């Protein structure tokens, strides 16, 4: 079923530089523009520059990854938009706290 591996060396040149239009982010997230617009309305994701005209929106890769997460949570756990907004915010907070805790624990170990 799987072909032999092939190895190709790729050089990363595009760090954080990519942006997507509304159309592109919809295509990549496999969802409707209305959904993305709602996510923006709820502040779940935001374009790089807050402009009123949706056609001028540019999203970064982090926004795409958040959109995909929102889609997965909605599909798997049947969460509505306000619920999604809150879940994602709480998940961010948890993630931040986990990192902070790991960092502080590590510093505590170093102090011993």
């Amino acid at each position, binding site marked *: *079923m*799987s*072909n032999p*591996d*092939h*190895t*190709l*060396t*790729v*050089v*990363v*040149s*595009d*760090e*954080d*530089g*990519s942006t997507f239009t509304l159309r592109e982010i919809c*295509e*990549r997230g*496999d969802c409707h523009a209305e959904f993305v617009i709602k996510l923006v309305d709820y502040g779940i994701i935001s374009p790089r520059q807050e402009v009123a005209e949706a056609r001028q929106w540019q999203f*970064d*890769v*982090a926004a*795409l*990854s958040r959109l*995909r*997460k929102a*889609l*997965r*949570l909605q*599909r*798997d*756990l049947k969460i509505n938009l306000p619920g999604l907004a809150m879940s994602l915010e709480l*998940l961010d907070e948890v993630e931040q706290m*986990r*990192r902070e805790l*790991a*960092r502080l624990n*590590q*510093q505590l170990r*170093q*102090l011993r």
Partner: protein
Amino acid sequence: MEFKDYYAVLGVSESAKPEEIKKAYRRLARKYHPDVSKEEDADAKFRELGEAYEVLKDPEKRAEYDELRKYGAKPDGSFEPPPGWHSGSGFAGGGYTDSDARQFSDFFEEIFGGGRSGGFTAGSGQRGFQRDRSMRGEDVHARLALFLEEAFHGCEKQISFTVHEPDPDGRIVSRQKTLKVKIPPGMREGQHIRLKGQGGPGIGSAEPGDLFIEVELAPHPHFTVEGRDIVIVVPIAPWEAALGATVTVPTVGASAKVKVPKGSGGGRKLRLKGKGLPGKQPGDQIVVLQIAVPEKHSAEAETLYEQLAEAEKDFNPRSKLAV
């Protein structure tokens, strides 16, 4: 093939009512959702849950499964369906499911899949494939853990991931793809890299998808990272703290000399400009001083400390505690 006990997966009894099954699934799905759970095998666990629920929520599939379950696993835990087994519940016929059926186990495939040649099921989030149409290749999202040294200096990393593509007969098959990626210096935790055109191949004349990599940093025994800054705790002797000293501290790049100012207390932070993660605006290295004391002093040193205590008897280190 391993027998899957779907009742055990959901933690319900064989006689569980549909509502109990639904409730158990919902509870466990929240717990093990890969976007929520930090457990090591959350991904696999969640897929297993989805598979178990897919079968047990459907009375027809559940009845078929119960039948097979009676037939049972061999003593070594392996399982073969009875000869001539054919599922009547019609999953293979393009039945719609909420879950991504490509992720289900061999066991599920064998029982309800009607053979792998059955083709593509319309899992949500996966666009249906039609042979005569062109379709952009799938984007692949991956995480890559780097050691701090690797993130600092840049490195070459091998990444393997699965892409889906049509074989000559138009069936979707998965293929392992391996890439060597040159990571530039100065990557931070959570940063995204996009490798254009390195995801799944396009169908027809369409473009291939992209590969997105999210960077993670593995914990380091001495350094911690805060954004672009690298923090290290550096112990100094009490006399270095009191008199001031120039000490050598490790940096990720090499080592550096740091001037400890006279009268430095424990916890004092010294900043080494530009010695953090490299980049357009490089971070700093932050040295946190810690006063270290030998486990045992010589008699001579103790005498000297006693003299010191006498000379400095007006100093109250606990003045802030009001004692």
